[in-house]
C-alpha cells in the first residue's frame, strides 16, 4: 500500500481492500520504525489521525467519492492546526497550540484527508538545509549524512521515505522545490496568491506561497485541486478561476516551446547536474517539444534582491513575537523592554536573528532608499525578464539546484554560500510565478531535480508537462535504500 498513487489508494479504499484506519495505522507504524533517524516529524498526532480516518471510513461507506477521502498526509508545521502544536520549527512557538485551522488545513479536512502529523522545517522557514530547526536537523533518506534541503525538509524527507502519502510545503525562495529536488520527489510552488496564506505563519508576505510535495505530478494535481482558490480571509488571495488540474495531465506536448535560460547553465552549475538536466530536456524533445535558448539577464541579481526584500518583510512579520500574547516568554522580566528583548533573544535561533537584524538594518532611517526601494525596483526588472520570455516560450526549464544534496554542516557556518544554493529558485518567487521540481536521473546516486517554470496561473500546464515526463520515465518511483516497502 506504500507504493500506490493517491488515485489507486482511493480506489482501494472504496473497493474495501483496506480501510482508512488500516492505511493510517500502517503509516503510523512506519513513522515509528523510521523517523527516529530521519527526524522528519515534529509532532505525530496518532490519536487525531485515527479518529479522522474512522470518520473518513464512514464517509466512504456512505458513498462519498472525493479522491482525497481517507488519504494520510503530513502538514508542514508552519500551518496552524486547531488544538495541535504548531511550532514553525522554533523554540518561540514550542508551547503554541494553534487556536484555529489555516485555510489549507480546513480545505484538506473538508476533502477528508487524514493528518498524520506536523513536519520538521527550518525555523520560521528560514534556511535551505533544515539545519536551523529548534528540533534538530532532518536527514536525507538517500544519505543520512546529507541534508534534505529546506525549509520544507521534513515534508520532503517524509514523502521520499514513504512516511506520508503526500505533504504540504511552503516556498518563499525555493523552500518547496529545493528540498523536493534533493529528496527526489515532486514539489509544486503555485502562483503567488493561488493558495490562501491564512493561518500559514508569515515569513515574507509578498513571496510566501503554499504548495504540494508528492511522489508524482498526478498526486500533486489532486492536492492542488483541494488547496487552490479564493479565500476572503487572505487579503492577497487571487480571485481567479480554478481549472480541473487532473483533466489536462495527459495533453500532448507536440509543439510545446521550452525555453532554456543561458544564465541557468553557466558558472556554478555542477557539470554532472548539467548533464542530467540536458538528458531530461532531450526526453521532452522526443515527445515533440521545441527547445530554444533564452536569456533572463537579471538572474544574478535575484539572490541579492531577495536578501533585502525577504529579511525586511521577516523583521516586520516577526515583530508579533513579543512574549506577551503567545509564544516564549523569558523568566522574571525586569521591565517591558527586557521582556521583549530576552523573550525574542531566547525564542529565536541564530539564522532568524540574522535575518531580523538584516531586515531592521535595511529598513532603518537613512538606508531605506538604498536597499529596500532599490530591491523593489530590481524586483521589477527580474519580473520583466520572465514576462519577455513567456512571449516566446510556454515553459522555462533548468536545474532546481546547482548541485546534489550537500553534507550536514557543510554550509552551516557560511550563510552566503547557503543562500546561493537557492540561486535558480529565488527569481520565481520574486516574480510570483509558479514552478515545479521533478526528479530526474540521479547525480552520483543522489537525487536531482528539473525545475519547470510557468506563466502566471499556468499550474495545469506545469503539471501536464511534469506528468508526461513521469509517464516516460521512472525516476519519481525510486525509493531510497533501506526504506523499501
Amino acid at each position, binding site marked *: 500500500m506504500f507504493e500506490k498513487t493517491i488515485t489507486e489508494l482511493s480506489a482501494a479504499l472504496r473497493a474495501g481492500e483496506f480501510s482508512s484506519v488500516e492505511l493510517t495505522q500502517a503509516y503510523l507504524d512506519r513513522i515509528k520504525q523510521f523517523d527516529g533517524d530521519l527526524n522528519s516529524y515534529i509532532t505525530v498526532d496518532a490519536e487525531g489521525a485515527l479518529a479522522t480516518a474512522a470518520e473518513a471510513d464512514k464517509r466512504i461507506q456512505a458513498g462519498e467519492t472525493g479522491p482525497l477521502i481517507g488519504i494520510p498526509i503530513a502538514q508542514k508545521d508552519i500551518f496552524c492546526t486547531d488544538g495541535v502544536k504548531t511550532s514553525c520549527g522554533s523554540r518561540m512557538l514550542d508551547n*503554541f*497550540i494553534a*487556536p484555529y485551522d489555516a485555510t489549507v488545513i480546513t480545505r484538506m479536512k473538508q476533502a477528508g484527508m487524514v493528518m498524520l502529523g506536523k513536519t520538521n522545517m527550518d525555523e520560521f522557514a528560514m534556511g535551505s538545509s533544515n539545519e536551523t530547526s529548534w528540533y534538530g536537523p532532518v536527514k536525507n533518506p538517500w544519505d543520512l549524512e546529507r541534508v534534505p534541503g529546506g525549509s520544507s525538509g521534513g515534508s520532503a524527507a517524509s514523502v521520499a521515505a514513504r512516511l506520508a502519502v503526500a505533504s504540504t510545503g511552503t516556498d518563499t525562495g525555493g523552500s518547496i522545490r529545493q528540498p523536493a529536488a534533493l529528496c527526489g520527489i515532486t514539489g509544486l510552488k503555485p*502562483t*503567488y*496568491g493561488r493558495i490562501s496564506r491564512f493561518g500559514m505563519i508569515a515569513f515574507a508576505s*509578498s513571496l510566501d506561497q503554499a504548495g504540494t510535495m508528492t511522489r508524482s505530478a498526478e498526486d500533486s494535481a489532486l492536492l492542488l485541486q483541494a488547496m487552490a482558490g479564493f479565500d*476572503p480571509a487572505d*487579503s*492577497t488571495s*487571487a480571485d481567479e478561476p480554478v481549472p480541473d488540474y487532473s483533466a489536462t495531465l495527459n495533453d500532448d506536448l507536440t509543439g510545446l516551446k521550452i525555453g532554456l535560460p543561458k544564465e541557468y547553465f553557466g558558472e556554478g552549475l555542477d557539470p554532472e547536474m548539467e548533464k542530467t538536466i540536458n538528458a531530461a530536456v532531450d526526453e521532452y524533445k522526443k515527445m515533440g517539444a521545441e527547445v530554444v535558448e533564452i536569456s533572463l539577464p537579471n538572474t544574478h*541579481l535575484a*539572490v*541579492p*534582491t531577495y*536578501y*533585502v526584500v525577504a529579511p525586511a518583510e521577516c*523583521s516586520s512579520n516577526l*515583530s508579533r513575537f513579543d*512574549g*506577551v*500574547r*503567545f*509564544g516564549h*516568554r523569558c523568566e522574571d*522580566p525586569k521591565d*517591558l*523592554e*527586557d*521582556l*521583549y528583548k*530576552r523573550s*525574542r*533573544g*531566547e525564542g529565536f535561533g*541564530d539564522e532568524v*536573528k*540574522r535575518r*531580523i*537584524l538584516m*531586515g*531592521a*538594518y535595511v529598513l*532603518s532611517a537613512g538606508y531605506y532608499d*538604498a*536597499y529596500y*526601494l*532599490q530591491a*523593489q*525596483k*530590481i*524586483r*521589477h*526588472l527580474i*519580473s520583466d525578464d520572465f514576462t519577455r520570455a513567456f512571449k516566446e516560450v510556454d515553459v522555462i526549464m533548468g536545474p532546481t539546484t546547482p548541485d546534489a544534496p550537500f553534507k550536514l554542516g557543510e554550509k552551516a557556518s557560511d*550563510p*552566503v554560500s547557503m*543562500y546561493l544554493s537557492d540561486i535558480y529558485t529565488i527569481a520565481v518567487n520574486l*516574480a*510570483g510565478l509558479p514552478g515545479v521540481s521533478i526528479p530526474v536521473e540521479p547525480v552520483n546516486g543522489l537525487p536531482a531535480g528539473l525545475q519547470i517554470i510557468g506563466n502566471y496561473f499556468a499550474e495545469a500546464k506545469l503539471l501536464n508537462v511534469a506528468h508526461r515526463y513521469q509517464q516516460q520515465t521512472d525516476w519519481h518511483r525510486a525509493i531510497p535504500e533501506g526504506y523499501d516497502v
Partner: protein
Amino acid sequence: MSLERSDVEKIAHLARLAIDEDKVESYAADLSKILGLVEQMDAIDTEGVVPMAHPLHMSQRLRADEVTETDQREKYQRNAPQVESGLYLVPKVIE
C-alpha cells in the same frame, strides 16, 4: 559596507532583540558578508523603474466594516504566558 560591533548593537536594540555578548562580532561579520552580496544592486541603473510591491500588481481589497468574528478570547488567551480577568499581563509600564 561592513558593520561594526556598535552597528549590530544599535540594530538589535531597534529590533528589541537580545543577542549574546560573545556573538556580536560574528553577527557583524555575517551581516557584513550578506551586505557584500547585496551591494551588487548598487551598480544597477533603476532610474524610472517602478518599485514592485506585489507580484501580480494587485491592490489591497477592502472588506465591509462589519463584525464577522465571534468572541473567542478565552480560547486565544490559553496560549498567553500570563493573563488576568481577560487581560494580558506585562511588567509595570507606568510608575
